[in-house]
């Protein structure tokens, strides 16, 4: 009985790891509010290195509020049009999925 339980647990672990590593979310409409999954084996914690908090502005000038530049393309009603391309939760996918 105990041996049988161990086998079942092992099968479940293999399934979860396979799903994480190879699995692909169901095709079609995206899931709404699907929870995140972690199934990787634990690892020994190592001492944490820290980001240096003294953060100088990278490219920004230190000036206060500046007028919005008109050099770039303006929309018909004035102002600057901006384009933001964005991704999230791509989970290491390099190939087509679905």
């Amino acid at each position, binding site marked *: 009985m105990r041996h049988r339980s161990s086998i079942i647990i092992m099968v479940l672990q293999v399934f979860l790891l396979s799903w*994480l*590593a*190879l699995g692909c*979310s169901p*095709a079609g*409409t*995206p*899931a*709404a*509010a*699907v929870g*995140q999954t*972690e199934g*990787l084996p*634990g*690892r*020994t*914690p*190592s*001492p*944490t*290195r*820290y*980001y240096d*908090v003294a*953060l100088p*502005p*990278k*490219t*920004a*000038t230190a*000036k*206060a509020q*500046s007028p*919005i530049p008109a*050099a*770039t393309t303006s*929309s018909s*009603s*004035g*102002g*600057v*049009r*901006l*384009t*933001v*391309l*964005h*991704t*999230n*939760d*791509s*989970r*290491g*996918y*390099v*190939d*087509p*999925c*679905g």
Partner: protein
Amino acid sequence: MPKGSVARRATKIKAIRSEAQNPVLVLDAGDTLFGQMLALQSEGRVIVEAMNAMGYDAMAVGQMDLAKGVEVLLARAKEARFPILSCNLVGAQEQKLIFQPYALLERGGVRFGIIGVTEPEALESPGVREVAQVFDPVASVKKHLDEIKGQYDVLIVLSHLGVEGDRALAQAVPEIDLIIGGKSRRLMSAPDIVGSTFITQMGYDGEWLGRLDVTLDAQGQLRDPQGMVIELGPDVAEDAELKALVDSYKEQFPQPTTEPTK
């Protein structure tokens, strides 16, 4: 029909950048580096190299980005030519920030302040709870916002809090112009609007590329949002550079077959 791939995404990003006469940012809200086998085998290197090649401007730390532990993500952050951001993931002992909290970028004369925020569930990744804490997202964003006041025209938060967390953040910090979110994996063709903050995210598994066009008006407000879901289907050509990159990793890390072993 299978969708996605970094090679198709690169094709779209390059095309949009080459055609645009206005500032273009490329951003990611996290849970990006790990999941698929090749990414796990390479400890996220294939993804960071791909994002470098696609010219990403910034990314937030999500729970799954810590799947190989804090040290591995710190190593990837050093290789990335874009900042990997979290303003609220701190060391368990000294409570210092582990990653860069924000970035200040300028594109086409417009100054962008970009803050990254990580969900509390990040501690559930293996080995993370032992070395890190997650501070309150709202308080952390407010704290770092104070540091960069006057240094940006547009304030963007890259969030892996989920849509409800994003809405709460927008209500608590109305200075935020735009939240690019993740975790809820919603496919949003148009942004949610909370006060004057736009909130959006774009599905999961890299199957789509989100595009949001907005106008920064003379008063410094964003308006006229126009969202777009770009499906990365078979009709999108694969970028040769990215395909070669992925192929080189596949040679380095042969993929296991799905056939049962005898």
